[in-house]
């Protein structure tokens, strides 16, 4: 088991290196540089050239790449051109916002998704099933940002039930008040993210339950005289939860990077919004660092999924 995990981690090293090359050169392929937006007729072109030289933007790409990688190994993610601060401190500042929001959303996702999926599968073909499936398919079909914008419009601006921006009220102070304010700011984005996340779980679980119900081993259990309720819980459900469990690793890491849209729409100061802002301002250091981080999280999510899978499915156990 440990050997397998170690081997998987070793395989991740070349994957991350390849990822870094792609991330770096893709960023460089984007038109413009940090100064393109700031050039005015009053500015001396020579001054800009010297600024470019100072930042090493005139060096050959490979030199820039290796300098970037070298700095990464020292924990130096570079300076954000937009914020004039080290990227690492920017990320550190926003990471907790995103992590809390994601955690909230993940918990809600499973809390809503699993029961709905089980109900739809258990009562296949009934009105309950049709209703749940209709919900899952329609939420799936709506682009996430449209979904967020409509919800923001209705619940934020029209009904004014939830705040529309930020992660905490400006006047919030003191222990409990501060925490409550932060939670309050998280509720709507987290619920919306959870609604989007549930669709996959519902559909997976539903079809898993329907497929497993007609498996031979279920018939064997019936032939043993096992009561129908036990057959469902012990045989059908347990087998149907496998893909959900396997998906969990990706869900957890996916939500951190997946908060790009929700954070932007709600102006929630997390890593997702930071990434979108960095893209629009050509803030290379921030953009490449975050893309690399999200890529790394995806790889980590896959590893996590494999580990979860090997725990819950005896067939996957590799020695």
């Amino acid at each position: 088991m440990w050997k397998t995990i170690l081997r998987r981690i070793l395989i991740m090293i070349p994957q991350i290196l390849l990822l870094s090359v792609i991330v770096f050169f893709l960023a460089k392929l984007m038109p413009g540089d940090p100064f393109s937006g700031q050039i005015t007729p009053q500015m001396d072109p020579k001054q800009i050239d010297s600024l470019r030289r100072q930042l090493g933007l005139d060096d050959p790409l490979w030199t820039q790449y290796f300098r970037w990688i070298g700095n990464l190994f020292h924990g130096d993610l570079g300076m954000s051109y937009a914020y004039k601060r080290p990227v690492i401190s920017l990320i550190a500042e926003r990471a907790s916002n995103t992590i809390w929001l994601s955690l909230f959303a993940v918990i809600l996702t499973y809390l809503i998704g699993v029961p709905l999926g089980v109900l739809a599968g258990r009562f296949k073909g009934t009105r309950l099933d049709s209703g749940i499936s209709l919900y899952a398919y329609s939420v799936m079909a709506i682009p996430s940002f449209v979904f967020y914008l409509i919800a923001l419009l209705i619940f934020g601006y029209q009904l004014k039930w939830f705040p529309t921006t930020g992660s905490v009220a400006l006047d919030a102070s003191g222990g409990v008040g501060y925490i409550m304010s932060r939670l309050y700011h998280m509720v709507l984005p987290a619920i919306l993210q959870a609604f989007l996340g549930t669709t996959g779980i519902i559909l997976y679980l539903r079809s898993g339950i329907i497929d497993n119900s007609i498996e031979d081993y279920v018939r064997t259990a019936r032939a043993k005289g096992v009561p129908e309720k036990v057959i469902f819980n012990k045989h059908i459900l347990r087998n149907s939860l496998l893909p959900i469990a396997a998906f969990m690793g990706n869900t957890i890491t996916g939500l951190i990077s997946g908060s790009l849209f929700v954070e932007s729409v709600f102006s929630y100061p997390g890593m997702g919004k930071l990434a979108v802002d960095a893209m629009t301002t050509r803030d290379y250091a921030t953009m490449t660092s975050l893309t690399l981080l999200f890529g790394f999280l995806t790889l980590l999510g896959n590893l996590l999924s494999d580990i979860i899978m090997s725990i819950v499915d005896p067939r996957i156990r590799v020695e």
Partner: protein
Amino acid sequence: MDKPENQLLDIQHLHTAFRVGDDFYDAVEDVNLTLNRDEILAIVGESGSGKSTLATSVIGLHNLQNTKITGDILYNDLNLVGLNETLYNRIRGNDIGMIFQDPLAALNPLMRIGEQIGETLLYHTKLNKEERDHRVLELLGQVGIPNPVRVFKQYPHELSGGMRQRVVIAIAIACKPPILIADEPTTALDVTIQAQILDLLENIQQETHSGIILITHDLGVVAETADRVAVMYAGQIVEQGTVQAIFEHPLHPYTRSLLRSMPQADNDSDDLYVIEGTVPDLKHMQTDDCRFAARIPWIPASAHEAHPTMHEVEPGHFVRCTCYKTFHFNDEAEA
């Protein structure tokens, strides 16, 4: 009517109909069959002949929303047709055990072997966990698994096909049911393992004095193991008798064709006999005429009975329709 002392199961006028669209069609039609203690009753026929449907009707595994079962399946003065689920669950596993065809699919991939066998005991006995485990180990030994203690903790995928089939058998016999249904128990196994499994079934039957319904399309298996044979075609039993009667004096054209299509070592020809056509599907098999007539078109219609019934030609040897009297194979001269 008094039932013979060693009779276990008395099936009378059994119809099992499946829903296709809004209509129900008989997949098993008017089957009359008995099963006795200490006997292996083979049910043979092509795919689609209704033999598995018959078996699953006996153990009550059909989804009753899409299946209509009428007639009687009498077991100890209890009619299993229309029995409520709670009572049926007491019968299943305890009085009737079933051995399935594909031993990998028949076992839950996430449960250890010991737990899967123990589950039968859990719902039919008052044994505690320790006693159950002890009995499971005993069963594993009984079905010829070499290392019961190790296999107890293993998962299905860790066992070979033959071992899995032994586990499936152990599940079926855990409560020593008087009736065992084996649905093509050797189809998924290779030939050497097949023989071992059949031996095992025979041994179990001799030990427990149970009655076994053996469903198969392999006539070799039938000749080796069965005492009585019922041949099914298109949902009906077309011939029934002792294994000697069926193999030595087969009467019904279908039985004769089946026997002729068996590969024979002393046959010089490289070609196997093939029965023309296929078993009609559910919708198209519903007819009052001889259902096999379409596959022996060289036999004149006058040879068939208008409404074929079972004729007792010898004590215990039944055959459906009169066409057997004038039947000859296509390449044979008329009798």
